[in-house]
């Protein structure tokens, strides 16, 4: 029979609680940085992929295929173990001072996610009637300006449900950063387990935190969609 006595107090107070909180803060920081950068980079890649400049289009195409079709863990290892060998010394020194593990994880998450975001935005843009681009061009906007003011604001609105998915993936995928020693939520939960053998409590705490994080991200995007973009009015 079940002869395990739960001891929740071990993770709700004291040193182990502090570890979990610092882990949560690192996860939040890593996710936030990666989400913002991945969104900006994804927009840029999507515009390059759809533009008229051949080298840019070609570059974006290769970028998308490459980063979408290789495992995130391999990419994290690449930036952590691989890039060290090819980057100039002064960059390595700077990265070492600022936390190389965190930087490598953020770069890998950003680039990996940006490829998915770019494809989501591109399919959003393709669903905007071509007459919108004609209306913008006939008003005197250049291609890029038309994208900026007329096409992308509409495309991003359509893309919000898949974008939420990508943001949630970032928050969850950030747990892979523990493999290169970033002391985020999962890493700290593992630490607590190692010190206390309280694996059930520690990983339950981590699970609840990830779940709460996901729910909060979804809610924030929905509020933005309703209040800022007036989605209900503009249909």
């Amino acid at each position, binding site marked *: 029979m079940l002869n395990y006595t739960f001891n929740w107090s071990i993770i709700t107070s004291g040193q182990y609680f502090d570890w979990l909180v610092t882990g949560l803060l690192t996860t939040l920081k890593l996710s936030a940085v990666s989400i913002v950068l991945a969104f900006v980079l994804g927009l840029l890649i999507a515009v390059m992929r759809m533009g008229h400049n051949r080298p840019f289009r070609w570059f974006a195409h290769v970028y998308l295929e490459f980063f979408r079709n290789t495992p995130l863990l391999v990419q994290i290892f690449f930036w952590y173990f691989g890039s060290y060998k090819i980057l100039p010394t002064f960059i390595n020194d700077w990265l070492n001072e600022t936390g190389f593990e965190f930087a490598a994880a953020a770069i890998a998450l950003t680039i990996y996610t940006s490829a998915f975001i770019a494809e989501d935005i591109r399919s959003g843009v393709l669903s905007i009637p071509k*007459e*919108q681009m*004609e*209306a*913008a*061009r*006939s*008003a*005197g*906007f*250049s291609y890029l*300006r038309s994208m900026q*003011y*007329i096409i992308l*604001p*509409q495309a991003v*609105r359509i893309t919000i449900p898949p974008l939420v998915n990508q943001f949630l993936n970032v928050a969850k995928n950030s747990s892979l950063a523990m493999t290169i020693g970033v002391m985020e939520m999962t890493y700290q939960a593992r630490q607590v387990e190692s010190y206390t053998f309280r694996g059930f409590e520690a990983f339950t705490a981590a699970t609840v935190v990830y779940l709460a994080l996901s729910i909060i991200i979804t809610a924030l995007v929905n509020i933005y969609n309703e209040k800022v*973009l*007036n989605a209900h*009015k*503009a*249909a």
Partner: protein
Amino acid sequence: MITFKGVHKWFKKLHVLNDINLHITPGEVLVVCGPSGSGKSTLIRTINQLEPINDGSLIVDGMDLSDKKTDLNKLRAEVGFVFQQFNLYPHLSVIGNITLAPTKIRNIPKKEAEEQAMALLTRVGLAEKRDAYPLQLSGGQQQRVAIARALAMKPRIMLFDEPTSALDPEMIGEVLAVMKDLALSGMTMVVVTHEMGFAREVAHRVVFMDNGVILEEAPPEDFFMRPQHERAKQFLRQLLTPMQCECP
């Protein structure tokens, strides 16, 4: 103001514009009509280069469109275009639609652009709709906003591509009234339309096209009373009394 000289255009093998020669003077209102597929929409779309031309020369407001160095964005800012399907920006309010190009292209301060926009909205009779979104408006209202949006750039030429063809019959009048008011103010206008009442009353000249060729070019009274070509006669008969069509 607009001069076509020997203009040709092909879509693959289809010869959509065949040796177009046409001169439009400042302040003129020109109506272009013809059966569907005659090339009239393509003709009007070449004027702001939504469709590039393949041969000949086209000069619009002193800018040579066959010259690669001509800044098309600058040209388009001077030429207002009104579409059949309105093509308002659905993510922006009415006032946002009208002020976007003036603030971003002409760099007019937002407040001034909004005052101008309100004056235009009043002119097209929609001042109370300033904060509505396009999809909350009827077709006729959307088209009037689209006209105000084009006018906000203070264009020197206005192009209308079948502006009433997508509207319910009840809403055609309100749009034509705005266009008539604009014509009376001295705007240079090229209008592709099947509204023969508008052509008769407002146009200075009517152009009839078929198969990419301009068949007739005449003042409205001559065009309606004494059409020269058999194809034009047939077109007018069908337009005026559609039930007696001479279908094979």
